[in-house]
């Protein structure tokens, strides 16, 4: 059992270390965001699994499942919000980026999204967002 716990915590720590190195080394804000959110969530899931395997009690396992659930729910939501904010505030893309699919589809003033065929002038005003 100790071997399994050591292996799980090692894998989780490696993922967190790789995410930290990526946060330092990546050239662009969006690349840094994607590196951080995904790899850190996976690494924390491994570490939490190791904790649950060490204690082997019902209450601890319930807490661990709650923590992993919170992380899996909240990481994509916060990542999406931060990326959306970055795109609105005009964050510069990396010079090697070859495709920006959102270019020209966001209204910079009302922050609403249009699809390809729409004429931006005929759009109905957006309902109140949260």
């Amino acid at each position, binding site marked *: 059992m100790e071997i399994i716990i050591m292996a799980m915590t090692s894998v*989780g720590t490696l993922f967190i270390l790789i995410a930290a190195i990526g946060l*330092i080394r990546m050239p662009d804000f969006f690349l840094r965001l994607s590196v951080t959110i995904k790899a850190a969530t996976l*690494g924390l899931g491994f570490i939490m699994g190791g904790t649950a395997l060490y204690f082997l009690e019902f209450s*601890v396992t319930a807490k661990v499942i709650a923590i992993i659930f919170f992380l899996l729910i909240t990481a994509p*939501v916060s990542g999406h*919000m*931060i990326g959306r904010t970055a795109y609105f505030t005009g964050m510069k893309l990396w010079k090697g980026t070859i495709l920006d699919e959102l270019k020209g589809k966001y209204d910079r003033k009302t922050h609403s999204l249009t699809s390809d065929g729409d004429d931006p002038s005929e759009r109905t005003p957006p309902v109140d967002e949260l």
Partner: protein
Amino acid sequence: MLNNYLLFGILPVLSISAILVFIRFLKGPYTLDRVVSLDFLINIGIGIIAIYSIVTDHSAFLDVAMILALIAFLGSIAFSYYLEQRGKR
């Protein structure tokens, strides 16, 4: 065996990654970089708390980790929401 491995193998690596993230927190060119690295710092803190609860054999520390997982989400949501509203007219 397990305690020694966690104390001298795992926790230093987590600390090194926390230092790397803190460098990005200090020098990040935009505010959103700081928001992302703050989120990630709290995540590393959750990992350190979990490892520490194994080392000391107290499972009560996991409550703190659970609250931190919620607070980090609230913080990054609030920061990004208000930064987005700032550019809106």
